[in-house]
């Protein structure tokens, strides 16, 4: 029959657009590097809490960017726990944007309409919600970013966070030690564009500069998804006949990675970097006696709540409060793993009444 050149051009055109577009990615990645020294100064800056000071009773608003992952569920439980320890906190209201930034904007507006005393949040996209957060501050509602990233911006009063660069650096350094300073490795990172992904990769690259014997084959994004990490690893195992180690700070993804290696029969000599204290990963570390963990504490929620209450009391707080990560050697993993709990679980000090359903 007749040719349909236009159809081919349409498909070809969109493929070309996509291919051409990806080459633009390089310059975008470059500007993600942050000036660490300047950031440290920003973190230490004191917050002017006088304008937020008010008397109780307080209502805590939590604008969750998403609730569909166990880390944030545990983080929220820490918020509730801390709230229960203060007599002057009468309620915790939670909204869930389900990864929709437009909805998170609407959720923040709704929390303002409900006259909450403070807003704790973790963003879908930090920049998208700044205008809404600024509206909250204009109404005297302090905003606290809880979780994995430092935001220095008029819309964010303070941060209780885990420094992803420091975490990535700790993971990379232990990884280098375990590798013996040489080998071929790849990196399994979270969702591209998140602070976690950007900082972890930056930390790895900086550490690699001091270890020229280690070659980074590829940096992949498993999106905190165990199945996706497994699929990507299976394909990498095909592409590269020799892989000595994997840099994977997120234990959830590490599980997918090791499974791919185990099924390919290449797990014996594999060196895994420390993951985090994700329970499923901890169980694997206990069984296999290697890997270890650098923690990503879910008590960030608790610290965020404490920060918020201090602000409401007019006490001084810094712009950024780092919740330190700690290294767990494989030999100590048994203290943190809960063998009778699900994989999708985090070690914590939560009292029984506040733990999520098992």
């Amino acid at each position: 029959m007749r040719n349909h050149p236009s159809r081919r051009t349409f498909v070809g055109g969109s493929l070309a657009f996509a291919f051409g577009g990806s080459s633009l990615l390089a310059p975008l990645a470059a500007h993600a590097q942050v000036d660490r020294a300047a950031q440290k100064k920003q973190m230490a800056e004191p917050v002017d809490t006088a304008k937020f000071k008010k008397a109780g009773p307080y209502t805590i608003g939590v604008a969750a960017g998403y609730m569909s992952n166990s880390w944030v569920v545990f983080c929220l439980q820490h918020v509730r726990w801390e709230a229960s320890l203060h007599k002057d906190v009468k309620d915790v209201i939670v909204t869930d944007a389900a990864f929709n930034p437009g909805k998170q904007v609407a959720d923040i507006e709704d929390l303002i309409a409900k006259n909450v005393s403070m807003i704790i949040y973790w963003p879908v996209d930090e920049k998208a919600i700044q205008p809404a957060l600024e509206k909250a501050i204009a109404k005297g509602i302090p905003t606290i970013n809880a979780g994995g990233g430092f935001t220095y911006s008029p819309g964010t009063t303070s941060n209780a966070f885990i420094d992803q660069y420091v975490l990535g650096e700790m993971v990379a350094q232990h990884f280098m030690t375990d590798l013996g300073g040489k080998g071929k490795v790849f990196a399994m990172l979270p969702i591209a564009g998140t602070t976690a992904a950007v900082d972890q990769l930056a930390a790895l690259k900086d550490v690699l500069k001091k270890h020229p014997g280690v070659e980074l084959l590829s940096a992949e994004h498993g999106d905190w998804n165990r199945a996706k990490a497994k699929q990507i690893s299976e394909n990498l195992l095909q592409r590269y006949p020799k892989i000595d180690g994997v840099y994977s700070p997120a234990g959830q993804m590490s599980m997918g990675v090791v499974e791919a290696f185990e099924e390919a029969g290449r797990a014996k000599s594999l060196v895994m970097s420390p993951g985090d204290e994700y329970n499923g990963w901890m169980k694997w570390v206990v069984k296999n006696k290697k890997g270890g963990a650098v923690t990503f504490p879910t008590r960030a929620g608790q610290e965020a709540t404490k920060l918020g209450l201090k602000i409401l009391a007019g006490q001084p707080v810094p712009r950024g409060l780092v919740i330190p990560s700690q290294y767990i050697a494989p030999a100590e993993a048994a203290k943190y793993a809960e063998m009778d709990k699900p994989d999708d679980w985090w070690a914590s000090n939560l009292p029984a009444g506040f733990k999520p359903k098992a």
Partner: protein
Amino acid sequence: MAAPAAPGRHGAALAAHRRHAALRAARSAGIWGLLVLGTMLAAVLVPGFATATNLGNVVTQSAALGLVALGQTFVIAAGLIDLSVGQLLGLTVVLTCALSDGRGELLLPVALGVLALGAVVGSLHAWLVNKLAIEPLILTFGSLSILQGAIFSYTDRSVGRAPEALRWIANERLLGWPVAGALLVLTALGAHLLLRRTRFGLRLLATGDDGESARRAGVPVARIRWGAFVLSALGAVAGGLLVAGRLGTGYPNAGQGFELDAIVAAVLGGTSLAGGRASIVGTIGAVLLLGVIANVLNLLEVSAFVQTLAKGAIVVAAIIATRAPRSQVRPGAAHAPVADA
């Protein structure tokens, strides 16, 4: 070789048409009835609902979806469907912010540019449906994937900034009225006139009702479908401009879910997935109703998990409750015989 319609058949057809018009009016009245009732109940029962700020918020939050749903109404009325509008919206958000990067003087050219891009996408859809007879549902699902892949290949994180003027339109109020809301009302008015008072609109409804008969009656079906797809794309782009203003930054995944919400709004408002029946007024009512429900559930501190369950239950209940006696077919059935029960 169609025989001329017998007078009896003509009379029956006219009666059927009147019945459908009445049903459509009842359905869109139904949605507005629900909206008014719901709003009044909420005003009484939900603290914080009935303030000017909150009500204005609801309108502002719904405006983007409203524009997308208006476009979708046209394409569904024509007996087609467009699943790609969500990703087209996302592409608009990214391009608008990346290309203008906050510079006000670039707003107009960039806006015109993305509208033109939308027209091209819509035209491509129409061409593929007209020339190659691809099912619209599967075609726009394919283009959804392509657009999404293209967006994420271009950027994996927020890029650029929306110009101040766009942010103002999307968020602020003039004399107490949300500007985005006013924009939606004006667009809806234009859409209503286009659908009901122009030859294009009447032909569109005829095409959706029965493509073959319309073609035999001399309606330029291919051109009508082109118009429908372009309108759908333009609705997505316009919604995207508002979302860009609302977020202030080019978030790549901004469009996720808009296509399904737009379809739900159109159908709840009285537009039939089989084509041929549509209500602009109903679509707007449904969009506002969905916005009110989300707002009320938030104000009542209903758990987000329950909100999802509730939304699903509401959609199902509304469809069952307002189902038309005449048979409906799956969307995009422009090429399939309309004979199923």
